[in-house]
């Protein structure tokens, strides 16, 4: 399956950092420090000590979700594009999306205010449009060597696996390589709501299908040491390379 990378479009990229217990973050200022401007929206959840900020970024939008135990950075399509899109919304081919997202995250690691981190994850949802469900299953089998499907008489297929590997960057560190494979369908529908009656739904587009791969490449929770600040960038690159390998070669040990 070498050379299949370009066939996959990116729906979401996610970096998740798990701060060390000693990190005391009251109100993060990372958005302004990274983007040089205020976010377009900022939602504070004081009771939970949480914060969500978002704004336009390159081909989509960047979202920061902060809570004391986890920090998520998401790169996703713009909401208002949903009004225009015919089929699945994406932010471009995976390699292009990564080359936009990873340098930004490396800049975050370099900020003085970036907390110490004890676990790091790179998540992605990628899609490969296909004609129909059967074609989708045939395509998935190219990536899943151990799977044989009767494509004409099967539905609801979902394959999920974690294949751990040793890090080549940090001695003694193991990396979870979680992948989840399925076929997704999408349709635009119009819903009419009237008081005191059941909402009615009208289909306004055909069904669109895509092979769907969800990746969660992350350092294992058992590793409880703080990463050296200078190692965060090489670790993230290793997570990205492992993700690209799965997208390109399918489910391999």
């Amino acid at each position, binding site marked *: 399956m070498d050379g299949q990378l370009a066939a996959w479009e990116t*729906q979401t990229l*996610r970096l*998740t950092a*798990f701060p060390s*217990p*000693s*990190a*005391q973050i*009251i109100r993060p200022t990372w958005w302004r420090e990274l983007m040089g401007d205020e976010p377009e929206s900022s939602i504070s*959840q*004081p*009771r*939970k*000590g*949480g914060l969500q900020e978002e704004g336009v970024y390159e081909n989509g939008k960047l979202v920061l*979700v902060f*809570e*004391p*135990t*986890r920090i*998520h950075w998401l790169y996703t399509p713009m909401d208002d594009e*949903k*009004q225009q*899109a015919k089929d*699945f*919304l994406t932010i471009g081919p995976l390699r292009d999306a990564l080359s936009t997202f990873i340098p930004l995250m490396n800049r975050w690691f370099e900020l003085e205010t970036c907390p110490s981190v004890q*676990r790091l*994850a790179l*998540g992605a949802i990628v899609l490969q449009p296909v004609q129909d*469900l059967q074609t989708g299953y045939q395509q998935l089998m190219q990536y899943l060597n151990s799977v044989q499907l009767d494509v004409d008489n099967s*539905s*609801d*297929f*979902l394959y999920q696996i*974690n294949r751990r590997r040793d890090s080549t960057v940090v001695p003694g560190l193991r990396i*979870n390589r*979680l992948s*989840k494979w*399925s*076929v*997704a*369908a*999408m*349709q*635009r*529908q*119009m*819903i*009419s*709501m*009237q*008081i005191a009656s059941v909402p009615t739904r009208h289909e*306004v587009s055909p*069904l669109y299908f895509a092979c*769907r791969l969800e990746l*969660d490449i*992350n350092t*294992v*929770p058992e590793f*409880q040491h703080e990463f050296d600040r200078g190692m965060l960038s090489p670790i993230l690159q290793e997570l990205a390379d492992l993700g690209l390998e799965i997208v390109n070669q399918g489910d391999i040990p």
Partner: protein
Amino acid sequence: MSTATVEMDLALHSFTRTDPEAFIPANIGEKSSWTKPSQEDEPSENATTQHDRPRELGEKLKALFNVDRQQAFEDGMESEFSRGLIALIKHYGNSALVELTGILRNERVSEEALSEALRWIGRMNHPPSYEGRRWAIQHSLFHPSARVRDGAALGVAFLDDTRAIPDLKQAIRVEAIRELREDMEQVLAQLEST
């Protein structure tokens, strides 16, 4: 008569499911033929995806911590509070601990209740939430309130996990209250002899 029309993208969980939850306004994968309302992902420490926490959880914790009211606790004695807290953590797992970590920053919650909570989450036996509890306790060693830090030190002593040593040493270095610093040093000695 009022009428509203909404246009939205619907992704299908499954072609064979019949329940309303099979259709949701998001792009998600085909999932299953189950006819029960929803299929939660299997909880796994290895997965890092963001999950919505149950809506009622925050309210339950808020009620338990009884914001704005002083509560009295007897040292080491079980109470409605400790039983309620343990039940919530056993039921909601790490979601409860994420919410609890947020509550630790809520200035309207009594320091005594927070301190009591840290002692009990160190003491309770529930392996699935262990790492989350350990994180919350070690994080609280650096809390602005001395009373909360005291509860965290006791929580560390109950966990008796040597992995807390670096954070405990750091907390001792910055602890300004002599008595509390000495308590922490005792806990450190306990861990180092483990």
